[in-house]
């Protein structure tokens, strides 16, 4: 039984409330304000400049395309990994450790690791050369090869951030009582049916949090893209960075920020609705 309410819990949460208020809520409001405030009052000028920018539609398209490709692949891959790992009896801990290493790797470092593979005189080209598919060092990461560049960035993102989905899903799998699957097995359910009818529905809360986390982060994608393609592949967060740091235009940068936040919130709302679990469906 939790203790009777007193002043103590309030004193305990107060510091973090103040901190989040000052450094989360205030900047949130500030961002919106910065994006609409112009010299004389409120206007949508910053948004018009943002939308009128050459890179804008490209950045929107690229960010969405990347998210739509990367997030589903990550979830599928993580599900496959989790299923395989749970079947292991020997070496499970070691395998899990290796598979979760990318969890601690920054997007910048991931981009650089894949750059070593994909650069002109890199290992991919060396392999293709050995197979006789190319005749010499070939560039994949320039504007002339937009699809190769896109594919490279997607690979690096999948490589880096599948681990986080894996960890969330395995943590979720551990909560599913073994008896359910065993009972279904006794009644003759095939592995695929068991997975689809038992594991997947019970995993829904975990899938939901993994999807929210990954989608929000995917719309923020930035450093991987810069490490691999520089400015050849505009994305929303990258444009915000350029407007802020290079053009010193905080208003347009804030407009980008509001756009990213709106998309993230909308995505979260969709996931919360589509993947909601009713209390009576919980084990």
């Amino acid at each position, binding site marked *: 039984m939790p203790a009777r309410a007193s002043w103590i819990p309030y004193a305990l949460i107060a510091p973090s409330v103040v901190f989040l208020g000052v450094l989360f809520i205030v*900047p949130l409001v500030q961002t919106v304000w910065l994006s609409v405030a112009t010299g004389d009052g409120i206007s949508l000028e910053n948004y018009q400049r943002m939308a009128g920018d050459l890179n804008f539609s490209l950045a929107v398209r690229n960010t969405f395309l990347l998210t739509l490709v990367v997030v589903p692949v990550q979830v599928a891959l993580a599900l496959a990994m989790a299923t395989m790992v749970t079947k292991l009896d020997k070496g499970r801990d070691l395998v899990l450790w290796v598979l979760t290493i990318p969890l601690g790797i920054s997007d910048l470092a991931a981009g650089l690791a894949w750059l070593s593979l994909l650069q002109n005189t890199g290992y991919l080209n060396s392999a293709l050369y050995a197979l006789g598919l190319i005749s010499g060092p070939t560039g994949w990461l320039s504007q002339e090869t937009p699809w190769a560049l896109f594919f490279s960035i997607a690979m690096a993102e999948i490589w880096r951030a599948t681990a986080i989905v894996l960890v969330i899903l395995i943590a979720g799998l551990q909560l599913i009582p073994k008896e359910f699957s065993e009972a279904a097995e006794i009644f003759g359910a095939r592995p695929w049916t068991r997975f689809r009818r038992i594991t997947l529905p019970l995993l829904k809360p975990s899938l939901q949090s993994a999807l929210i986390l990954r989608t929000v982060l995917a719309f923020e994608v930035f450093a991987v893209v810069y490490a691999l393609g520089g400015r050849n592949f505009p994305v929303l967060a990258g444009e915000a960075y350029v407007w802020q740091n290079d053009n010193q235009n905080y208003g347009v940068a804030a407009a980008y920020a509001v756009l990213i936040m709106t998309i993230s919130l909308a995505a979260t709302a969709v996931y919360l609705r589509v993947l909601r679990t009713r209390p009576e469906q919980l084990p």
Partner: protein
Amino acid sequence: MTAITTERPQAGKNRSMTLPAARRFLLWTGIVVLLAWVLVPIYFVALGAFGGRLGVFRWPKSIWPSNLAIEPMMQFLTIEGVFNALVNSLIAAGLTVLFSIALGAPAGYALARYTFRGQNAYRLLVLLTRAFPLAILALPLTVSFIRLGLYDTPFGVSLIHTVLALPFAALVTQSLFMGIPREYEEAAWVFGCTRLQAFMRVVLPLALPGLAATAIFAFVISWNEVFAASILTVRERTLTAYLLRILAESPLHYRFAGGFILIIPSVLFIFAVRRYLFAVWGIASK
């Protein structure tokens, strides 16, 4: 499929032992492919980091290490600004650990031990942070940080990194403290300890490993963060911000050296917290 149904095992527990050889082989092939998928890029960036200028342009490349030396890495570390950036990264990450534990753990304790009005509002605030791309918040902070003298300091960077790590710390410590029976504490009260003494002598020692894991996660969150760190610093860059800034003009082998240095602590840290990984993330992702 049929093989399984015909020789269905007695219990689900040792089913993997009875998997037919062919399926076992398939499983392990898949596992090996996945392990290679994770490890190969790290291996190649390490080759790049220790291979120097010549290594980068060797063509065609062999996947085996050759002409590796410690000098290229040393050269990279002595470039002006790199060492300073490394120190800044460590300071920012250290402060992030300090702040997120100092602010998050009490909140976690409150959530675990008390019911109070506003509890759900607080939980909502913490969860709300997850629906936002937090690093983006660095954009408006630039102006106020310049005014307050926090701009371009590791301290300023650590503040925004704490926003990233604090919700995580609060949720994880909550479940940590819930796992420590309150009877232990009550027993200490009976023996005349004050609340604070009971906490320090009974709860804290039990919570210490979990707190250490939380601290390590906070460290990694800060160490890896690129966007906010790049926005909020100019001269006193963190390592990620420094690398991002020099990306365009630095030679490839320096970039690989930088990437390698970024990766190493993460690999070690994940190893250190591997026991807590699933508990911690299972909770934090609720």
